[in-house]
């Protein structure tokens, strides 16, 4: 087997995992794609109805629904991109098919990439669905569409990576839900999905600025509405460093066979 053939085989095995993962979440498309669309319509409908009876409907000069739309897209993307690899890997552990990754000619990067890219794709699709739902209330207008969708893609990849790491270490969906309840949800909601983080009192405001989700939400919102405050250089660099650490830890765990090998 020459090196070209070997590379082709590695690529096909990676691509197969991506296809398998996409097939899996498309098989349950009602739960994975349609449900976020409907729940966001309900969500925005409630907010729109609530604000219809109030005077001030703006945050920092923007219509509140427009203000929260990027945050809602962000939180929907976070939860979908994170959950996809978690559920898929833990299901494979239940079915005991996860060990087959030891049989296949697949590089660790192929395995990691396969799960993460498919999870990110689901996150991205849910982002589009949420945007379509939100547009019914706030109109379909994005200040910097290319940067906005790049930001959505980046957030999808980061959270899918976090989901992958959770999936390979955890053995039950119940336990993985603790991470959602205790870490992800508080960080996302305190990151300014529904409010302007600058309005937080004293120390919470300072802490809030270092919340990596607040940093990501700020960038996402900035490119969506076209103005607002951007996070400082230091919190941005910290967030980038955290993402690099997340990738390094995930890659190292994959090379060591965490989740697929028995020590």
């Amino acid at each position: 087997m020459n090196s070209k053939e070997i590379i082709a085989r590695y690529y096909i095995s990676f691509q197969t995992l991506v296809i398998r993962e996409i097939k899996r979440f498309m098989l349950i498309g009602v739960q994975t794609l349609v449900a976020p669309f409907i729940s966001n319509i309900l969500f925005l409908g409630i907010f729109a109805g609530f604000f219809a009876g109030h005077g001030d409907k703006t945050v920092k000069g923007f219509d509140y629904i427009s203000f929260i739309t990027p945050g809602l897209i962000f939180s929907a993307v976070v939860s979908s991109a994170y959950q996809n690899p978690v559920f898929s890997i833990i299901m494979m552990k239940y079915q005991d098919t996860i060990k087959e990754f030891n049989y296949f000619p697949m590089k660790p990067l192929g395995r990691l990439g396969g799960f993460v890219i498919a999870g990110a794709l689901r996150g991205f699709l849910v982002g589009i669905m949420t945007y379509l739902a939100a547009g019914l209330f706030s109109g379909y207008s994005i200040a910097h569409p290319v940067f906005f969708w790049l930001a959505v893609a980046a957030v999808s990849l980061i959270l899918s990576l976090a989901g992958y790491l959770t999936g390979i270490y955890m053995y039950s969906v119940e336990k993985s839900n603790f991470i959602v309840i205790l870490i992800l949800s508080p960080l996302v909601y305190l990151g300014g999905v529904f409010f302007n983080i600058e309005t937080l009192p004293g120390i919470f405001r300072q802490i809030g600025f270092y919340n990596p989700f607040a940093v990501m939400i700020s960038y996402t919102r900035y490119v969506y509405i076209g103005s607002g405050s951007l996070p400082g250089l230091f919190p941005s660099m910290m967030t980038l460093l955290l993402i690099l650490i997340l990738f390094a830890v995930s890659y190292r765990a994959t090379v060591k066979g965490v989740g697929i090998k028995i020590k």
Partner: protein
Amino acid sequence: MIKVENLSKKYNENSKLALDDVSFELQKGEFAALLGPNGAGKTTLINVISGVVVRDSGNVSIAGYNIDQNRVEMKTAIGIVPQEIAVDNFFTVREILNLQSGYYGMRRNSEYIAYIAERLSLTDKMNSVVRSLSGGMKRRLLIAKALLHKPKILILDEPTAGVDINLRHDLYRFVREMNGEGMTILLTTHYLEEAEELCSRILLIDEGRLIADKPKKEFLKMAGDFLIVKLSVNYDMSKIIDSSMIKENKGANKILEVPKSRIPELISSLGQIQDIIDDLNISSPGVEELFVRLTEKGGRN
């Protein structure tokens, strides 16, 4: 094709060795059985070879490549049929087989998929969702999955566990044909007659140690020069033969282990009770008898 050298494995500090310095080598085209009681280390050995279990020491090479090298050539040389029926329940049989080919880096494999499906009588089930299949069909699917990349070595970890007699014989025929086509096969089984019927070489493992590795004929001679006598008679056999020869005495059914040199003596004794003997069968010892002898007597010494 498979070379295992001084393989040892302990799952945790306080446990016994699951594998204790195991070494053997299988040549191209061999059909070997790996036998041993429950917990002997058979599945651990298979799992180390397939990369599922991390070994503590020793080496394994497949088709000339060390398993640590994780080479495409090595991974595609071997097909594994695991003991547990582990299949992806979301998909149809066709989807599973297509995905399996893809995982081995093969994009267009539909002709071979159809061929293997036909040989394993899966053709009618190609569009069925896996969770709707019977246990036997799932077992066939596992075997099909292991063969799609045309491996040179096939490892079957108790492939007939919980499988009905017809399917078992189908599988026997199939693996025998694969072996006839030059495939090297390592089979672990609890059905000892399987080993006797199919294999040319027998590896016996007990408490993690390989206690025998012989061609089948030599293995059968290992435990000594004796015959197995099974008879059905309502009589206390110790009155007419040496009681040390009586190995089992359940009501009318008796099993005797008789040295060949004492067969004339036995026949003469049986002459005294010929009118009340309902059934009598004299045969060479099977793997089962030798297995019991070796693991209970010699093996642990």
